[in-house]
């Protein structure tokens, strides 16, 4: 009963946010005209703005939000750490570094960027998992985040180094790395879809065993699951999702933290409920942030990455304070 209400509220919220994102923008287009397009009328100009500028952003925002929210929830369950967020742990930074490297070498096709980005995310995941194996880091949520912040800083400075090499590439990297879903085309979206669907299939297959892993590794084995295989599948899914999202929108931090946090606050800690709730909440947060990015500093735009960081940083503080982390 209560669960049903959560789904109704979150999905209606997403619908509302989507509508707002189509109706409001930084341009001169009036709301009335934008609304006319939605009812099948409107001028050619209004049609272009809504269908060719705002709709792709909406679609990309949806995919990015889905991917980052689900990836965050998976990584947090896997590491049993509520702070394990792809952006904070260096997974996004790994993929950003890989993409920057690709841009430097002149890679321009969206498909290639996506795959490079996912490979970078996989390397980032591997480093995170290695970090959790270090004595003391795996057990302490905050230490893992510190290790991730170090990795992120290292990868970002290497990325900056790349920007010194070539001015043309530097401009492209700089625009992309602040995080934005403006000015992206349908091509870029469709380039990520196959791997995103693959990740979705993996998640569907791995979710039940992953839920049992939350009861402890030995319990999971007792129930006939293979923890090593589950971890591998989940890490691949996280890399595909984060890599795909980063290729689309740049390295967005905090989204993978905030979305599962809200989902858990509503639906409890069970990974299956969390994932179901991430589906509407992830896109809603990205699309709302993107709409804000268009409206806050009219007529120019604020980068999406800045907005998500502004929303996310206080949530991180909230989680750390609420958990009363004992020693430092």
């Amino acid at each position: 009963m209560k669960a049903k209400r959560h789904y109704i509220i979150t999905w209606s919220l997403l619908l509302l946010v989507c509508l707002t994102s189509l109706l409001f923008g930084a341009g001169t287009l009036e709301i009335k005209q934008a609304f006319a397009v939605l009812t099948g009328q409107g001028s050619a100009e209004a049609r272009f703005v809504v269908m060719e500028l705002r709709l792709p952003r909406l679609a990309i925002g949806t995919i990015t939000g889905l991917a980052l929210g689900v990836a965050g929830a998976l990584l947090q369950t896997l590491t049993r750490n509520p702070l394990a967020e792809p952006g904070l742990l260096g997974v996004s930074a790994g993929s950003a570094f890989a993409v920057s490297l690709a841009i430097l070498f002149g890679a321009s096709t969206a498909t290639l960027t996506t795959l490079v980005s996912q490979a970078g995310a996989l390397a980032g995941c591997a480093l995170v998992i290695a970090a959790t194996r270090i004595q003391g880091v795996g057990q302490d949520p905050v230490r893992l985040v510190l290790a991730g912040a170090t990795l992120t800083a290292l990868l970002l400075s290497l990325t900056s180094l790349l920007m010194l090499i070539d001015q043309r590439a530097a401009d492209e990297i700089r625009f992309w790395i602040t995080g934005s879903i403006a000015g992206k085309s349908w091509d870029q979206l469709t380039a990520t879809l196959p791997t995103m669907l693959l990740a979705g299939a993996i998640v569907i297959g791995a979710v039940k065993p992953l839920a049992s892993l939350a009861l402890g590794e030995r319990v999971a084995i007792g129930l006939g699951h293979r923890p090593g295989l589950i971890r591998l599948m989940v890490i691949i899914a996280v890399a595909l999702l984060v890599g795909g999202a980063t290729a689309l929108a740049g390295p967005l931090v905090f989204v993978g933290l905030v979305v599962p946090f809200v989902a858990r606050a509503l639906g409890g800690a069970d990974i299956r409920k969390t994932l179901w709730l991430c589906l509407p909440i992830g896109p809603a947060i990205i699309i709302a942030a993107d709409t804000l990015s268009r409206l806050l500093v009219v007529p120019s735009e604020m980068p999406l990455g800045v907005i998500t960081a502004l929303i996310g940083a206080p949530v991180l503080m909230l989680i750390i304070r609420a958990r009363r982390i004992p020693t430092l």
Partner: protein
Amino acid sequence: MNQTVTMANTQTSATPLSAKHLVMAHGSHTVIPQLDVALPAGQVTAIVGPNGCGKSTLLNGLARIHKPRQGTIVLNGADIHKQPAREVARKLALLPQDNSAPEGLTVTDLIRFGRHPHQSWLSQWSDEDQHAVESALRAADVGDLADRPLDTLSGGQRQRAWVAMSIAQETPLLLLDEPTSALDLGHQIEVFELIRALAHQGKTIAMVVHDLASACRYADHIVAMLGGEIISEGPPSDVITTNLIEQLYGVTCDLMQDPTSGSPMLFNIRRARC
């Protein structure tokens, strides 16, 4: 004398789970140098011994949590590590020590996990699953707590919920690692009586037990371990002697028979003088 009698017993009755020439090690440290054991069918076996004697390691080996360095664990006549994981989980349930569950998980949620080995990829919740969960709730007497989150329960209630998960797994074999370790006396009795009731229904059960008195009271078969080896094995009344207790724990005590159950009772326990 006792030894030969038990050997004969285990050979005649079919044993569902046994270890043959088992060698277990953590890294370079050998915990169990060489060991053979067979669980008597339909009985409760208690594995006892001092800290670090390898009893949990043996249980983890039997439950295929850790692979043996050498030797085999035989489940229904075949090597356990050569059978598909899910099929093993339909024959053998394990309740490890110190379990934790995500906050907010309810008793029913937990018990439903027990049905995993019976479900295939993406399969829906069947009537059979529902029936198994309901009868597990009844068997472990947690029906009134079905919708309560685990973190709101007492230790004994929580442990009964975990046992209920194993019951829902509907396996003929159940292994438990110190099922009563963190419980007070009343809650210990709750859990032990539940285990006895399960054995009465025909399950073969093995448990690691810290408290020797409880092992004597609730087990049909005792496996006493010291330094990674089994030093004595058999029914409590045969195995438990003042000598064995001194050997295991370095204490001397007197023994008498429990007038109601006939199991050995320890009293006047004190440190052995060397």
